[in-house]
């Protein structure tokens, strides 16, 4: 049963499906018949800064988890361009439904790394006010948030608003029935939504061909809306294609599936051990396509970055990371009794009764003090 699937590894893993690229791994600009981006030096520098900062914070979070300060961390290393390109394409009014690894998009939505750390420290299962950032809470059960996103997009459409919605999923997520139902609804109602599929080649230990024998962007063909594969390690291509897809959604032309073809450079999470299932050569191969290095080469060639400026950005990132460390270590909460606070929005006798039982048992002080 399995051999047949393995046999086609190339089909999805290799970049044989044509893929939108505007920036070659060498850092040279390449052209594409459909998509283009003319970033100002400031814009390009801004994208670089974003990527350096989230990469640095990602390293810090991983270290914090190792030191027992976080329950878990899901590293984004390797996916910086996919997330920053997509995240910077979003307009303030757009709304995004992330998974659990979208720290880069969160950063673009004005969510601080410290806020991103909260659910991983388990002081909460959320971390920010979704309405303040037009960015939903993290979602861990794979697939169901994508359906929620389509519903939100139907609401945007019903409001007659000029905004779009983004829903995040992964290569593994593409196999969940919920994602297919989301595609059906989005297509039938022509919902203003962009499905951002980060194909990082792995679903924990399972390679993409365990989910599909053909490129995942083609999945959209079967539902009647466009699917595009983008070089997910090329921030220019990600920005250009995501902007176009969001514009298309806002115009009322319906959904688009964007497959950001990228790679999970690190472990699935800090609990994972990739050495059990993948070979170093694959990782080294992808290292050659590193999204941050690539943009840096471009900036240097364009004379938009020199050593001094690069060092400045690194220093800024280090500063953010060390402040992040302090903030995370200081994070407290919740209090035992607070678990009863938001089960329901309206009064609920059982919740009140059980809160009282807990307070009686622990004492008001302990029940109310942050963990």
């Amino acid at each position, binding site marked *: 049963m399995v051999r047949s699937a393995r046999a086609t590894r190339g089909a999805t893993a290799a970049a044989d499906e044509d893929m939108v690229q505007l920036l070659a791994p060498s850092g040279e600009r390449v052209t594409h018949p459909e998509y283009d981006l003319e970033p100002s030096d400031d814009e390009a520098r801004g994208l670089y800064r974003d990527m350096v900062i989230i990469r640095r914070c990602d390293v810090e979070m991983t270290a914090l988890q190792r030191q027992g300060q976080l329950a878990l961390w899901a590293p984004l290393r390797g996916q910086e361009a996919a997330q920053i390109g997509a995240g910077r394409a979003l307009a303030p009014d757009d709304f995004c439904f992330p998974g659990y690894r979208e720290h880069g998009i969160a950063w673009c939505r004005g969510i601080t790394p410290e806020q991103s750390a909260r659910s991983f420290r388990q002081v909460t*299962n959320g971390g920010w006010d979704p309405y303040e950032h037009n960015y939903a809470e993290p979602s861990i059960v794979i697939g*169901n948030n994508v*359906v*929620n996103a389509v*519903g939100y997009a139907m*609401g945007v459409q019903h409001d007659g608003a000029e905004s779009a919605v983004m829903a995040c999923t992964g290569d593994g997520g593409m196999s969940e029935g919920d994602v297919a139902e989301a595609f059906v609804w989005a297509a039938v109602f022509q919902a203003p939504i962009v499905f951002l599929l980060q194909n990082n080649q792995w679903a924990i230990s399972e390679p993409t061909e365990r989910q599909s024998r053909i490129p995942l962007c083609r999945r959209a063909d079967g539902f009647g809306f466009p699917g595009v594969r983008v070089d997910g390690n090329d921030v220019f291509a990600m920005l250009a294609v995501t902007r176009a897809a969001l514009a298309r959604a806002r115009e009322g032309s319906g959904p688009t599936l964007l497959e950001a073809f990228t790679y999970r450079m690190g472990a699935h999470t800090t609990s994972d051990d990739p050495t059990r299932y993948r070979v170093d050569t694959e990782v080294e191969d992808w290292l050659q396509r590193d999204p941050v290095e690539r943009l840096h080469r471009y900036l240097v060639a364009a004379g938009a970055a020199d050593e001094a400026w690069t060092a400045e950005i690194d220093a800024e990132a280090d500063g953010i990371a060390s402040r992040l460390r302090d903030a995370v270590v200081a994070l407290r909460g919740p209090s035992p009794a607070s678990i009863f606070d938001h089960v329901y929005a*309206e009064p609920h*006798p059982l919740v009140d009764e059980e809160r009282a039982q807990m307070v009686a048992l622990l004492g008001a002080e302990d029940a109310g003090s942050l963990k």
Partner: protein
Amino acid sequence: MTELTLAKAINEGLRKAMEDNPKVLLMGEDIGRLGGVFRVTDGLQKDFGEQRVIDSPLGESGIVGTSVGLAIRGYRPVSEIQFDGFVYPAFDQLVSQVAKQHARSEGAITLSLVVRIPYGGGIGAVEHHSESPEAYFAHTAGLRVVSPSTPNDGFWMVRQAIECDDPVLFLEPKCRYWEKGEVDEAAPPSGLFEAAVRRVGTDATLVAYGPSVKTCLKAAEVAQGEGRSLEVIDLRSISPLDADTVARSVEKTGRLLIAHEAPVFGGMGAEIAARLTERCFYSLSAPPLRVGGYHTPYPPSRVEEDYLPNIDRLLDALDRAFEF
């Protein structure tokens, strides 16, 4: 005061809710042009348009899942699951998103959505059309579960459920859809989560909800003839449970019977029995007894009357309660 069937009363309640609040949308399979397989949404698409009464693609996770998104956007979606047996594909959405969004967001998101489900047996249906899934939902913190037993409650409770800022599963006893009753459009009978004493009695308390309330009232009638005075309580709300009302009655009668169509094992009757035993331990002259579905898949409907709680089974349990 107008006399309506339960189905029509819920239809009227939905209409009022849609008139009162433009954020109320209906979504489900065949609810628009057809008006729903039970006609509960009859005429609403014609009057409120296809934008507010939406015939959805065929997928329950899609229906409930998109309702979640609409609710996050500020709408008050009222979705319909065509039959009880088809709610399970939406179970993950209900347990992992509907029930948890408010807590996950620490209160930032209030999910005002209603999921309507015609439920229960007794209509001679084929497989998967007679299930009683309420215990699954009652065990799920974050959800509220209610079930009307009369047209007046159908009219008012559906409006109260839509006005509620929490997700509400609205379970409609399909075998009562065609039964008529007075609807008082002037004022609601009570709060959405309050139980109602349908019949006052002194010797034993019968607790039920939805389709079983009427069965209990009939049984009480027969018992009266045998010289036993039964108090019948219609829970109306399955979660939260109005335990106070039940406790007051049990302290008076000393005997408690619970009836529902769902299998007894792990059903709501277990929670009610356990909770009331703890609260009324010294008042009980007999253990709370449960009458409900057996531990089998819902049987072919030709034998459903022997599977469901019926007058004989209730009176038999009553006798046992008096033997203690």
